[in-house]
């Protein structure tokens, strides 16, 4: 198989990968709606003064509307703002009947979330209206955005990789530059075009806009309002600056363009999941420590291939082989750290689309590292003894590396579009404190504006203490009539065990007992009887070791 054939196969793989990305078309979003007031399907006795939505992180409002049963908009909030809580005042004295609240917001990682909830004033309807905000176009835009992002990654990798390569081999800059100028030129162009296209696709996702030329202006403005615009503008400018400084025929500098090109890679930290992770002071540097060496590495395969066509390529390959392992070590370590920050649990790795894509990526990276090791310790030493044969063999393996690298970039582009388990965790539990040092397990949940924190210590089969801490809206004290726990483990065939939790302090209810007798995933349902007629129910899975 020649290098050219392998490259052709790589392009095919990329096509298949992107096709998969398009068909998967993930339309998820990454901020999570925690609670609404009134709650979905709530029946309120009198019309509320306002409707409020609470998310796990600050979101940007695209719209929120309240419609009556005939579909008339009776209240609407203007776009803008950046808060975790959105409140929409309602006009006074709404008559009895059903109401729909439909909303669309952007999370800080530039993904749109929309939904609809229903509530009734007065009597509950026989049949609740269908409350499904169907995104019609956003999923397709999401697929296009993933393809576009993969191409953008590739362009950035090529430009930065080639620029850094020339800097490292500066003795041969005069030979390498003319060889690489046209591929780098194409990559700069691709990078700028995909940066602009990213703004449009983001706008399409935000607005759920149809594919019509008339909407391009709206899509552009909506896209520019997201964090994507920062990355797009910075990346396009830095790519053009790299071209200007390092690749024009009269250019001589090697390090200045490399610094600019690396800065272009760093723009990737301006948008995406890492921005919204709670610890972004940590995730952003870790992301950069992962993405910069990774993209430089993948991007250096092309110049290495081209250099190996000529005899002086041996020198370049030897030098590359000395430097690359340091970068690889950093990128793998940072990649593992990022994976931990986004996934958190083993279940998250195997049970979610994000985790599965991540596993696939890890397998491909493993294969890539294996080939890199063969290159480094078997083929590179041969360059001195049997240069021509070794160069031919190296060109084949580097082409395979390039193919794997492109596939990995494509998967990474899909990952950027898929909600990480970290954000899904927030959907069921707002505060998730699982401290490895302390035995035990704790989750928090909000229902009907009241917060319950449930702790099980030590969360090992046998005797456990189950503690429930309750707070009302605005973190006020509440004094329920009773707090009941119902413990079940369907996998072990254990039907609910119902226990009253005695009050041990203000808002604290606790029971110590042998009920959690077998390991496995238990479901703990907490019924809080607020008064004779009102009950709030929380339910959480509790892993017992």
């Amino acid at each position, binding site marked *: 198989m020649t290098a050219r054939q392998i490259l052709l196969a790589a392009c095919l793989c990329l096509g298949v990968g992107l096709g998969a990305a398009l068909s998967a078309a993930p339309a998820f979003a990454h901020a999570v709606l925690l609670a609404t007031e009134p709650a979905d399907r709530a029946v309120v006795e009198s019309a509320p003064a306002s409707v409020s939505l609470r998310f796990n992180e600050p979101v940007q409002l695209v719209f929120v509307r309240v419609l009556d049963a005939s579909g008339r908009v009776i209240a609407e909030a203007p776009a803008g703002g950046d808060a975790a809580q959105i409140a929409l005042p309602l006009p006074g004295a709404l008559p009895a009947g059903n109401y729909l609240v439909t909303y669309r917001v952007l999370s800080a990682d530039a993904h749109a979330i929309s939904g609809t909830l229903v509530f009734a004033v007065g009597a*509950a309807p026989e049949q*609740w209206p269908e409350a499904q905000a169907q995104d019609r176009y956003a999923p397709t835009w999401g697929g296009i955005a993933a393809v576009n992002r993969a191409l953008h990654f590739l362009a950035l990798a090529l430009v930065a990789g080639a620029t850094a390569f020339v800097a490292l081999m500066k003795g041969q800059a005069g030979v390498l530059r003319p060889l690489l100028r046209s591929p780098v030129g194409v990559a700069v162009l691709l990078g700028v075009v995909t940066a602009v296209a990213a703004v449009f696709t983001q706008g399409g996702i935000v607005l759920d806009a149809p594919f019509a030329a008339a909407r391009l202006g709206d899509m552009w403005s909506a896209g520019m309002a997201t964090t994507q615009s920062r990355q797009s503008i910075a990346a396009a400018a830095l790519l053009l600056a790299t071209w200007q400084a390092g690749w024009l025929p009269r250019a001589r500098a090697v390090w200045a363009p490399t610094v600019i090109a690396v800065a272009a890679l760093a723009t990737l930290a301006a948008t995406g999941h890492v921005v919204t992770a709670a610890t972004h002071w940590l995730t952003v540097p870790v992301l950069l420590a992962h993405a910069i060496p990774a993209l430089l590495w993948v991007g250096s395969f092309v110049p290495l291939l081209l250099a190996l066509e000529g005899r002086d390529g041996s020198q370049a390959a030897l030098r590359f082989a000395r430097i690359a392992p340091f970068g690889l070590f950093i990128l793998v370590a940072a990649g593992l750290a990022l994976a931990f920050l986004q996934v958190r649990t083993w279940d998250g790795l195997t049970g979610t689309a994000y985790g599965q894509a991540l596993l696939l990526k890890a397998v491909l990276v493993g294969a890539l590292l294996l080939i890199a090791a063969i290159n480094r310790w078997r083929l590179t030493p041969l360059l001195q003894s049997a240069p021509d044969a070794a160069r031919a063999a190296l060109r084949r393996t580097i082409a395979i590396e390039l193919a794997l690298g492109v596939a990995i970039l494509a998967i990474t582009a899909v990952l950027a579009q898929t909600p990480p388990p970290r954000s899904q965790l927030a959907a069921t539990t707002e505060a998730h404190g699982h401290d490895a040092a302390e035995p035990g397990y704790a989750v928090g949940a909000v229902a009907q504006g009241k917060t319950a924190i449930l702790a099980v210590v030590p969360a090992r089969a046998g005797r456990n203490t189950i503690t429930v801490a309750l707070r009302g809206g605005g973190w006020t004290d509440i004094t329920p009539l009773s707090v009941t726990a119902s413990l079940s483990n369907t996998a072990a065939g254990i039907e609910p065990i119902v226990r009253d939790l005695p009050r041990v302090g203000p808002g604290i209810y606790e029971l110590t007992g042998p009920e959690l007798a077998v390991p496995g995933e238990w479901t703990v349902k907490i019924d809080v009887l607020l008064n004779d007629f009102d009950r709030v129910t929380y339910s959480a899975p509790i892993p017992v070791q």
Partner: protein
Amino acid sequence: MSRHTSLATLLAALTAATTPALAHVGLEPAQAAANTTIALGFRIGHGCGTSPTTAVKVRIPAGVTAVQPQPKAGWTLTVIRTQAPAGAALAADQPATAPVAEVHWTGGTLPVEFYDTFFLRMRLPATPNATVYFPVVQECVTGVHRWIDVPQAGQPEPAEPTPGLRLTP
């Protein structure tokens, strides 16, 4: 029209036949025309296991107005009214005009082998085809039934469902 009606009746009969009659609070009637005044009975057909019923408390849902409970021999009748609206100081000497929030019949004894019906007169809301749910708490010498879980479409019926009155056009 009549075919539809008879089909609906048949379905209703089938549903009634297959639904376990025990462990529920029954409403008499089970449905009524919207925007009319009716006397609605809450039928208590059992106690808490073997323990006799000692109190029946009903919460009045929103939209139901002009509530008048029927006193019952051997039971103490208490009416809990909502707070008078702010600025209604002039009405303070007429507290009986504030809307009824809850009605409690307490202090009686209803042995498990007997049944009894507790009546309220009320004006029903003008929302045909809706179901009005009346949360009921049934207290016994030992134990309590809280009929406060509203059945949800597509969900299994709760263990202690809230009785619902269907409003017809």
